[in-house]
């Protein structure tokens, strides 16, 4: 039997097709793509406005006989045009990944097909591997669309030229983005498999996402929720007090939204000098470790899923 017809591959292909037929998955994925496009426009529009403000301010300062400072736009890397994408990935990208992960296993449970799958000649490992492969394929698909928008933006804008290193940084950012969405997708998959009810399977990862996005940054850096969704304001210096030093030390490695924000800011060149991630673990390593952990719990939940039970318990 060739690889393409292995049980794991069949599960992956069928699951991905099943999920793509879901209108809510299509809606959230469409929202993600639209917001990625908006983020490209926002980056261009905001930078262009600051440039115009500078030109007006420079004329005003010259007429007043005052010294004219350098244009802040010149200090900004062209890569930072994509800074808003990190916010939308942290919001809609993570939520889309949770829904995809949840639906991948939730649809099987709700349709009551697990006992049917259970009588087929395939092991639990093949089922788990197939589901994780389907999730990986769908998340990579979303990341590929986001990457295509980013690349097209940089190719279309006339005044923007990226060096080879900057293209590599952009590829690194897309890699980190895939990891971050993958973490939430795997948590969605694990909760969808382990939860007794469909709603709890969806709400548990959403609660985790809310906690990581809006509560942890407050503990590690006194960052209010609305500041956490602004790419620039989110990179604040934590207050210099014992509490925040300890909070960063203890909670920093678990504050994944912070890790993603700092990894993105570093790769897209908008990290202000002197500001570092609250975690003692470098942000990218932090995300790799978190994705590995999520993979382990998704594998455990999927391989322990009862194939004798059809629908949800409640």
């Amino acid at each position: 039997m060739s690889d393409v017809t292995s049980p794991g591959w069949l599960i992956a292909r069928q699951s991905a097709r099943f999920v793509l037929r879901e209108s809510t998955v299509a809606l959230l994925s469409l929202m993600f793509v639209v917001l990625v496009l908006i983020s490209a426009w926002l980056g261009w529009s905001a930078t262009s406005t600051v440039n115009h403000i500078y030109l007006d301010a420079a004329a005003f300062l010259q007429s007043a006989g005052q010294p004219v400072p350098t244009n802040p736009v010149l200090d900004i890397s062209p890569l930072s045009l994509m800074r808003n994408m990190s916010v939308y990935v942290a919001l809609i990208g993570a939520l889309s990944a949770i829904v995809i992960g949840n639906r991948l296993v939730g649809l099987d449970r709700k349709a009551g097909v697990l006992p049917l799958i259970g009588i087929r000649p395939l092991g639990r490992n093949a089922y788990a591997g197939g589901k994780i492969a389907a999730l990986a394929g769908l998340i990579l698909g979303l990341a590929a669309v986001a990457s295509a928008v980013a690349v097209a933006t940089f190719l279309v804008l006339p005044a923007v030229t990226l060096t080879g290193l900057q293209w590599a940084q952009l590829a690194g950012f897309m890699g980190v983005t895939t990891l971050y969405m993958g973490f939430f997708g795997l948590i969605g998959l694990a909760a969808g498999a382990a939860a007794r009810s469909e709603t709890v399977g969806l709400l548990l990862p959403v609660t985790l996402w809310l906690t990581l996005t809006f509560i942890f940054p407050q503990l590690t850096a006194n960052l209010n929720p609305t500041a956490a969704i602004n790419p620039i304001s989110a990179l604040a210096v934590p207050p210099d007090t014992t509490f925040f030093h300890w909070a960063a030390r203890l909670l920093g490695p678990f504050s994944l939204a912070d890790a993603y924000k700092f990894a993105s800011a570093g790769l897209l060149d908008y990290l202000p000098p002197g500001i570092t991630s609250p975690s003692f673990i470098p942000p990218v390593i932090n995300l790799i470790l978190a994705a590995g952990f999520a993979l382990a719990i998704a594998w455990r939940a999927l391989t322990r899923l009862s194939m004798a039970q059809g629908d949800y318990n409640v």
Partner: protein
Amino acid sequence: MSDLTLNPVLLNPSPVRTIAAKDIRDALRDRFILIVTGFLGLAALVALVTGAIALRGDVATYEAAKASLLALGKSADAIKAPEFYPLRLLRGAIEQIEIIGAAIAILIGYRSAASERGRQTLSLMLTRPMRRWQFVAGKALAGIGLLAGGLALVLGGLTLILHLLSGIGLGVDDLLRITIVWGVSVAYTACFFLVSFILSLHMKNPSHALLVAFAVWLTLVLVAPQIGDTLDPDNQVAGGVFKQLNIAKPDQVEIMKSFATFETVRDGIEQASVTKHFERFTFAVLGIKATYAGLPLGPILIEMLGNLIWIFLTSLGLGALALALPLNPDRLAKA
């Protein structure tokens, strides 16, 4: 004779009360409301405590700098003392209500509509002598009542902690402001409850309705204000573009006159979201926005009346829609 006199049900509001009381009992029995209220309370408490710790740090830094200047024989006027308005410490908590409170309202709306569908009890309930609007009104009242109770617990707890933490205590004016914020928070979260309730009641699949409601929440609560915030030129450069260019406030206003259209579009995107109206109103009433700190309540309420009307009209409009949409019993079985 009119329909009103022929149908005593129309004159008797008890079905509304009965359904509302039953829904509240159900919600309290399965502890869902207590769990989500506890989560919101925890998020708000974290915001309050971290804000207070950060302020204490600012005060300590100021005291140390002042002592150093005085030891050198210099005047301490050169450094600005940190301002302390106790209600400002509620900023993070208000933002948590703005985001997590709205998400919880969506969950309550979903559960309120989906519970009868899941238990297949709706057809049975609709055989009882009551109008369908009474069924919808009872459910909506219960949901909004639960939200009001949860928010009262959260804001009441925060007020008590603030009273003890601030060291100077809260006065009657402060309590009045917090009460007004509670009322507006109920109206604001009711908007999201009603969106989710209407979708869950009328869409074929309730779990799809929940996700669509979350898509609406993302757009109104996070994306629209974020776009407005991002387009603010002063948020594009660390520390602010005008601060970096050393331009005084009156000159900033003059320069920004050339960007009136841009600012109108930016403001329009923000204004389209009920969340921004909630934020503007509550930040003004609590003096979180610096320009309103220390101002009497009356003029603030007059200035913020537009935001207040927007919030209440949105919730009333959605409430009217929930009552007006005809219930399709075929749609109300478990999907």
